[in-house]
Structures are given as structure tokens and as C-alpha cells.
């Protein structure tokens, strides 16, 4: 079967972002960008399923600025076969992304769509679930284990109290959690090979999707700063301070 893997270009997870002085947004000028870590895990899982003979082809798609081609090429270097890049003028909302993915699902008819559980910029955790609603496909979110058998996929999910396993009828959607796998490093020869893999460049209009933006950002502010703390020299002093100064112990 074919696997579709949507990937997102986001700020590198090690970067501590700063808010712009006019509080219109965070400042992303000259900041290192990378593939969203959860998307990296999604690509890795798709490639492993191909190595196991479960998947026959991996199509990777990214929606956003033209530079997202770098993230598609990276996914191709790991093992994706071809790419689709849909460029938008501004970052698209989760619902718009889900609608574009729905159109691609209709065209490509994948057996599985594997997405990251959330992107580390907007922290929305929505797109996979929304795609499920729009396509009528079942979803296995926050996956830490994926097993495909016949026309079903069993997904073990990380939930608040522990783990839950659900059985989904294919085609289905999986969103990846951190512990699904350890993404491999990309090798230089594979990076060179990835440059020759096919990439389709599209716009939302090609799919007849209008960009929906009903939620607008009015302001982006830095979080409240914590007051500077003190260093204590011993456990006794720590307990004394917690009891008498902070009054959180009795």
C-alpha cells in the first residue's frame, strides 16, 4: 500500500524563540529551521513499514513556504519516494491543511496517512484528527506502536493513564508520539540521491481549497518572567525556607 506522510518546516526544537518587540509574532528571522520532530518520526515509521514490505510507496507532502522543499528532500533522503509541495502565502491553519490533505488523499488513495501528533511551533495537535473527520477515516493518535495486518492496523496509543490499543479499519490515520521510533540520520549519498527524486509543486488553488482563517492572532507576548530564586547551601536550609518563607510545607 501507499503511505502518505505530511511534514512541516518549523523552528529547530533547540532554539529558544523570542517575541518581536511589537508583539505581533515570534521573531523567526535568521533562526534555524528544521523538520518538525514528530514529522521526522512519521517519516521514519513509513520507511520502516516499507522495509518490512508493508508499504510499496511513500509520498511526502509539505504545505507552507517554498523553503519547505528542504524538509521534503530530507524525508526523501530517509526513504520517501516522491514529494508534493503546496506553497501558501501565509502559514495555513490546521483546518486548511486538513482540507488540502483530504484532496491529496482523494487523489493518491493511501492506505495509511502518518502525521506527527503536533508541531512544536503552534502546539495545536489538530491536523491528523481533522483529516480523520473530513475523510471519514479512523485515527490512531499519539502512537507508540503500529502493526499492520490484513485490512487493519493496531495502534498502541500513549494516553494519560498508560497505554491503549485500538484496532482501525484501513485506510487509517496515525499520529506519532515520541516513543514510536528513533529516526535515523541522513547519509550524504542519500541526500544526493534525494535531489533527483520527483517533486510536484502546487498551490491550494490547484486543489480548489480556499484558505480558511477564522482564528486571528491579536497579540503574542513573552510569558511572565519568574522572579530570580536563591541558592541554598543545605537540605536543612531548603526545608526551612519551604516551611517558613514559601510556606508550601507545614
Amino acid at each position, binding site marked *: 500500500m501507499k503511505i502518505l506522510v505530511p511534514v512541516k518546516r518549523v523552528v529547530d526544537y533547540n532554539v529558544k524563540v523570542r517575541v518581536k518587540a511589537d508583539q505581533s509574532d515570534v521573531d523567526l528571522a535568521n533562526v534555524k529551521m528544521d523538520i518538525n520532530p514528530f514529522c521526522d518520526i512519521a517519516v521514519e515509521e513509513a520507511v520502516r513499514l516499507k522495509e518490512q514490505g508493508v508499504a510499496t510507496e511513500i509520498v511526502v507532502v509539505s504545505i507552507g513556504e517554498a523553503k519547505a522543499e528542504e524538509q521534503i528532500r530530507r524525508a526523501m533522503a530517509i526513504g520517501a519516494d516522491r514529494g508534493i509541495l503546496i506553497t501558501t502565502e501565509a502559514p495555513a491553519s490546521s483546518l486548511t491543511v486538513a482540507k488540502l490533505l483530504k484532496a491529496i488523499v482523494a487523489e493518491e488513495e493511501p492506505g495509511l496517512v502518518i502525521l506527527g501528533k503536533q508541531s512544536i511551533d503552534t502546539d495545536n*495537535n489538530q491536523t491528523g484528527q481533522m483529516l480523520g473527520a473530513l475523510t471519514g477515516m479512523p485515527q490512531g493518535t499519539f502512537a507508540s506502536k503500529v502493526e499492520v495486518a490484513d485490512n487493519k492496523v493496531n495502534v498502541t496509543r500513549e*494516553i*494519560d493513564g498508560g*497505554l491503549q490499543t485500538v*484496532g*482501525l479499519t484501513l485506510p487509517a490515520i496515525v499520529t506519532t508520539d515520541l516513543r514510536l521510533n528513533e529516526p535515523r540520520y541522513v547519509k550524504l549519498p542519500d541526500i544526493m540521491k534525494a535531489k533527483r527524486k520527483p517533486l510536484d509543486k502546487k498551490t491550494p488553488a490547484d486543489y480548489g481549497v480556499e484558505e480558511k482563517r477564522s482564528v486571528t492572532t491579536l497579540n503574542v507576548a513573552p510569558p511572565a518572567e519568574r522572579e530570580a530564586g536563591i541558592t541554598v547551601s543545605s537540605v536543612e536550609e*531548603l526545608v526551612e525556607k519551604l516551611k517558613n518563607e*514559601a510556606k508550601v510545607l507545614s
Partner: protein
Amino acid sequence: MSILVIAEHNNSELAPVTRNVVAAAQQIGGDIHVLVAGKSTDSVAEEAAKITGVTKVLNSVADHYEHALAENLSNLVASVASDYGHVLAAATTTGKNFMPRVAALMDVEQVSEIIAVESADTFKRPIYAGNAIATVQSADPIKVLTVRGTAFEPAGLDGSASIESLAAQEDAGISEFVGEELAVSDRPELTAAGVVVSGGRGMQNGDNFELLYKVADKLGAAVGASRAAVDEGFVPNDMQVGQTGKIVAPELYIAVGISGQIQHLAGMKDSKVIVAINKDEEAPIFQVADYGLVADLFEALPELEKAL
């Protein structure tokens, strides 16, 4: 317009976070209805009816609602959502799972994990692992919101709402519950605990967490962990505190052997008092700690246990 809150429960008890979500609904203002869906939920519905500010409880009972499968739960919520101005659920793994499906079925965007209500259409939410707070305004006719429980004080329990049954929707038949492995713990639930003691990579192995458990038991605290400690296999993943784990905001958070990566800080920096115990005085955790102790945790933890 009325507000619909989707209750979280385990088919016998209402999850406490539901009261935090009702508190957020109170700030929006309007009649608050609570939807309880599950396998046998009469006792849960009765609990929900007692929450202050709730005027009606909708109780929908069907076998296929037992495990809150997103495909079935979202269809049920969407079947009544058009009667409401707002639909709210907790930003737990359950709420995060089904709510975006509800939003897409209603063709509206979702505002995830709100931490403050500015007005009926304007909310604050953290982005970039809590390194920025966005104020967002929704023009959608139905506002679908998930709520960070720790950001709202739980609503009281002096209500007496009426309970109505709500017809179940058909089983979507595309997903099924196969099994679950729930962690068993006598300690308080992590997100609701007044005191949290967390360990990181510095604990070195799972056995050493015993040192933390002893301190936690003296304090009546829950035990958490950094991603490093979970990835190393010291403790199960449901103990992870951080951007991609649980968000906690206890009165007292004690971080032991945790360096303080931004992804971890995103999960605990709204704690009232933060204590860091780390042998590396350069560790970033000391920048957010109210009280820092530079010490070897293997000496400090037994001393702390004795001193409590």
C-alpha cells in the same frame, strides 16, 4: 448562547479536570450543559449535575462510547454542537483526541489548550513550548476549545442540574478498543497533585527512583519525570512532564537531576514554587527555580526524606 462541556470520566467516576473546564465555561458566560457519554454513566452524570454553574447534563449511554473512541464520540458531540456557541473539553489525551474531529465536522477551527478567557471570543494560549503566549480571536460561529485544566481553579460542587438522556449515534464501525495497560499508582494523579517530585537523567536508573518515591510519600506528592528519564526506560511514559507530556502547576515542584530543557520547562514552569536539586550549578533549571540546591542527589534525597 449556551456552552457545552464534554465530561471526562472512566465510566464510574468523573475526572476532576472536568470541573476546571466548567470554570473556564463560567468565565465565558452562559448556560452550561455537560455531556456525559459512556457505557454506564448514571453515577458520572449525577456527579456532573452537582458542579456549580451547570444547568443541564446530557447523558448518552451506549456500549460503543465506553472507551471514548474519537470516531464515535466526535459524531455524538457534532450531532448536538450546532445548538451551542461554545464546545469545551479538557486538553487531556482524551480531549485532544476527539475535539479536533468535532471542529472539522462543524467546519470550524479549534483553539487548543487555552489558559485564559479574555472574552467570549478571545482566548490566550501558549505557543512554541510556552515561550510565547498568543491572544487569539475566533470568528467561528461555534467555538471549539480545549482547556488546560491547571490554568483554571476547579468549579465548586453546589449545583443541582437536571439530567436528560441523549440518544446515542450509531457505532461508526471503523475503530475498536483492543486493550489497555494502565499504570497503577497509590500516589495522587500527576496533573492534580499539590506537590510533584520529578526525576531526570541524573537518577541514572529506574531503581534509584525509589529515593524519589520515599520523598514523595512523605509529602503526599505525585512523581513525574523528564523525557530523558522516560526515554532511558527508568519510568513509564505517562509520568513525563513537558511540552509533549503532562502539564502540571502544583504548589511545589521539586526537580531532581533534571537539567531543565525548554521542552521540560513548558510542562512545569507555572508551578508556584520550584525547587531544583542538581550537581551542575550551570544547569538551566536553576534559572526558573525559586530555591536551588547544588548537590549530589544521592546524598540530598535521603537527607531530604529524613528532614521531612
